[in-house]
């Protein structure tokens, strides 16, 4: 027994969220470098966007948990 296939699903979801949050963070850093005076607005929006991307990954993780429990 090497665990279940749902672990793959969790891994894929995390890869997707990782790419997404990486893009958001990278672009935000670029934006801050271009316009350091807008750092407050950019940071707040960055966290909001990262939270939205994270939400999709969390749903995938919970779905794989649920299918694992049955």
């Amino acid at each position, binding site marked *: *027994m090497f665990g279940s296939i749902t672990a793959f699903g969790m891994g894929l979801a995390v890869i997707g969220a990782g790419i997404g949050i990486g893009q958001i963070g990278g672009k935000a850093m670029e934006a801050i470098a271009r316009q350091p005076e807008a750092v407050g607005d950019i940071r*707040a929006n960055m966290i*909001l966007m990262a*939270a939205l991307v994270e*939400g999709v990954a969390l*749903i995938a993780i919970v779905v794989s*948990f649920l299918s694992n*429990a*049955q």
Partner: protein
Amino acid sequence: MRQYVLTLLLASMFALVSFGQEHNGEQSHDENATEETHHEEACGEHGKEPFNPGATAFHHISDQNIYNIGPFHFPLPCILYSPEQGWSVFSSGVFHADAHGNGHYAMDRYVLVEGRVRRVVADDFPMGKVELEGHPFFKKVEQKDGKPIELAHVCYGGSQYAADNPSTADGGLFGGGVTSFYDFSITKNVVTMFLVFFLMAWLFITVANAYKKRDGMAPKGIQSFIEPIFLFIQDEVAKPFLGHKWERFTPFLMSLFFFILGLNLFGQIPFLGGSNVTGNLAVTMVLAIITFFVVNFHGNKHYWEHIFWMPGVPAWVKTILTPVEFLGLFIKPMTLMLRLFANITAGHMVVIIFVGLIFLFGKSGELAGASYGTAVGSTLLTMFMMSIELLVAFIQAFVFTILTASYIGAATEEAHH
């Protein structure tokens, strides 16, 4: 009128919190074969159990019926209801719990296993206070409605009795569901919520009085700690997302932010109960349901129009968009619930696993050198993790608040096309 209905709804939501149970069992039933050999153990034998990090972590993050500060145990009131025997109200001190939260006595067929009250279902088990025998409990995987579920067993009078887990509000999704009794006790999480509530009330009444007394003067003492945080939420969250209606929703957003932040930070204090309130699915569910009602009670015509009949798109697209938007109504609070729960639970678990490494590598104290070596490493790792968790406590409270503000903002936005 609408406000009264809302207040009543929110009040009834909090009654759900007492279902704040963790899903026991299930997680670890197939993790190790050592549990398998453990069942065969007869009553009264004290076998030395191998260290199980998964089970230890789940035990430590779950809600409990006793409150421990360092080595001291404080009994909490148990309020239990079973359809068969009615209400039972007593202190959890009657169980005489040991250091692991396992009770050595049973009261009215209720036993304390790993800090949680469970109920013995057998009819031949005596009522009243009786002493359990030998090893106070062991876990055994049983089939229940076609699903394997891990139940605690206790020994009395030379025979084994299975003990039911408390009912949970998850309807069996996470391995819980309705069992033979309901636990409405003032548990560790409820006590922590009360503590944080009184702390917040004291803090904000003090600060509010200071503003009255020192009108027009610079903030002083605790005022200067609260003011920047308060202004940050007001200026960065409430005003940009809510437009000219920000004053109306600011009290709700502030309550959410400071309640979640207080609970997150309280859970970070070592040895003070180690409470994991915002890492409990029931608590975050209630917070998310409150947000759901606040958003949808204040939704205007345009908000509902955009959900059920999106203007400006062809009819065949509407048939796809409407179900998606309708599901989005429920997915938004669900992600709020899961995000807070997952982040806080993961933080607590990582800390426990790092501490557990000492016992894993040191073979529960048999290898002294390995224990000491790992202890140094895992203490450093735990300190690093705790400082990250401090950041996460702020970020998650902020994210919950900013998302709530953006949902309210979207629901109350005036038409501009």
